[in-house]
């Protein structure tokens, strides 16, 4: 045909490169790289300052020493008292938040009617949005005096004080994560149990909670990791006395609070005292990372079970 003979063959090479595509690709890559680079950078800083610190203070002393006194002469760098402080506050927060959080999650997922659920969830969001410094001064101004009325022997700044507010802070996290896993238990399991003549309590405690248990555990671990890393409220409320005690009414110092203290103080960069905050930070980082990784592993296993 004449038509095909006169039409030139179609040009497959684009007149110019589709440059916008390449630009978008590059911009998005930079975004993704930024967070990775930040993480790598932080780890690098922690290590670069910790390594010289550990040249001066042996790992054995750091991890087994029972006295933390960087300002004394000779200075003592045994991290155990700080770990005690952190454990006491985070453990106390867990003791308060886990039963309360799990109970609320079970209520919301299994018992609450939709209107109640829709009313409560935004309130939890609000609780989650309160700045931690507010929790800190609430602890100092209201909770501490109250505690000292009940327990006259309590220090003004004490671990229990901090545990209570940190417990309230991690509560929304436990509730929302646990509720998600409870609700993800298939409806067919609940129906199967009801069809066998189970009561609501039987179904909830005998089927739904056990089926969701690994996810619930993961929510606890993530919340505890958060409690360990919590800084502002514990710095204000728990005190600044590094000591090995399990008495929650005593003033303690957590790892985070120590880092704040030194950062705000006048320790010169390059001194062991200043470098010690990086060693403490690294320890803290490893602790929370381990908890997070462990929790993610549990959650992954739980997802595989139902998919």
């Amino acid at each position, binding site marked *: 045909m004449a038509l095909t003979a006169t039409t030139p063959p179609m040009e497959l090479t684009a007149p110019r490169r589709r440059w916008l595509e390449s630009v978008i690709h590059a911009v998005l890559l930079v975004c993704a790289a930024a967070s990775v680079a930040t993480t790598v950078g932080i780890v690098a800083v922690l290590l670069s300052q910790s390594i010289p610190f550990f040249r001066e203070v042996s790992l054995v002393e750091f991890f087994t020493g029972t006295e933390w006194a960087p300002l004394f002469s000779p200075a003592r760098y045994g991290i155990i008292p700080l770990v005690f402080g952190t454990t006491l506050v985070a453990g106390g927060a867990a003791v308060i938040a886990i039963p309360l959080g799990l109970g609320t999650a079970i209520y919301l997922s299994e018992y609450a009617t939709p209107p109640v659920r829709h009313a409560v969830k935004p309130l939890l969001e609000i609780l989650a949005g309160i700045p931690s410094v507010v929790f800190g001064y609430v602890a100092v101004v209201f909770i501490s005096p109250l505690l000292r009325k009940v327990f006259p022997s309590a220090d003004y700044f004490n671990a229990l004080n901090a545990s209570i507010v940190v417990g309230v802070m991690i509560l929304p996290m436990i509730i929302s994560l646990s509720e998600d896993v409870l609700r993800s238990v298939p409806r*067919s399991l609940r129906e*199967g149990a009801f069809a*066998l*003549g189970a*009561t*609501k309590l039987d179904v909830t405690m*005998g089927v739904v909670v056990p089926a969701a248990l690994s996810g619930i555990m993961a929510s606890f671990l993530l919340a505890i990791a958060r409690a360990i890393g919590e800084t502002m409220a514990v710095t204000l409320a728990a005190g600044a006395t590094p000591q090995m005690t399990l008495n929650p009414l005593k003033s303690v110092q957590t790892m985070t609070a120590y880092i704040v203290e030194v950062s705000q103080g006048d320790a010169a960069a390059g001194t062991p005292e200043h470098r010690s905050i990086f060693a403490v930070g690294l320890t803290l980082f490893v602790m929370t990372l381990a908890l997070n990784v462990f929790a993610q592993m549990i959650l992954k296993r739980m997802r595989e079970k139902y998919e």
Partner: protein
Amino acid sequence: MAITARTTAPLMRGSESAPVGRDQMSETLSSQPPVRPPAMRTEAGAKPRTAAEINKLPKKVTATDVNFFYGEHQALHGINLGVPEHHVTALIGPSGCGKSTFLRCLNRMNDMIEGTRVEGTILLDDQDIYRPRTDVVELRKRVGMVFQKSNPFPKTIYENVAYGPRVAGVRKREVLNEIVEKCLIQSALFDEVKDRLDTSALQLSGGQQQRLCIARALATGPDVLLMDEPASALDPKSTARVEDLIFELKHTYTIVIVTHNMQQAARVSDQTAFFYEGHLVEAGPTNELFTKPKEKQTEEYITGRFG
């Protein structure tokens, strides 16, 4: 007479508040012992041939003028159906015709769906199961259910079968052992799993899981077994095993089975009921309904002209 089944009510004894004046029976379902031995075997497999013969049989379940509503939508219109004791009744019909809804009325599983309402009466023996003060927990022990998709609990094989008796209060290990073994034998699963009762039920094949769910339903000692397309997710070989099982079980239990598969209805059932758009079009002895249906709609459906 309107009887309301409210979603919030299924687990609370006597919490229904619908105005019902007719039923004066003082005996409640809850007076039954928690776990009953299976009823005696009756006439082995003799199929009634005619409608007159079916009508003469004692009825285990009698539905009279049953209407069912999902909110404003009426899903069942004036269903009247008698289910003869120790026989298999098949409910057939195209998707969405109300056969599963009707099945779930018989153990009040629809109570769990918000905004549903039942009118009419459904008698189990001579007690109206929608009467106020009916304990749905007791009802469901007597009317067991097997679901379309096998839904074993994420527990061991043993614990799956023992679940019903356990929530009914059976604590003694010997009694539980006996129930578990008997029910697994009845569901033709025992030989395949007897050496691994303590392994997870989720490791069984689909067909085995469905037979486990049947064993689980038998363990509460029901009189009636409701099966909602129990073989629709199974391969032909597993389907055949479940059908053989239904044939065995009908000597001990009264069975109502929903099925999409007309060959299956023809193979396993004594009586067939054809549902279409929420109406019970025709019910009769299976061989009559399939060979000389009275209604044109039935004929068109079973000959495959629609549905």
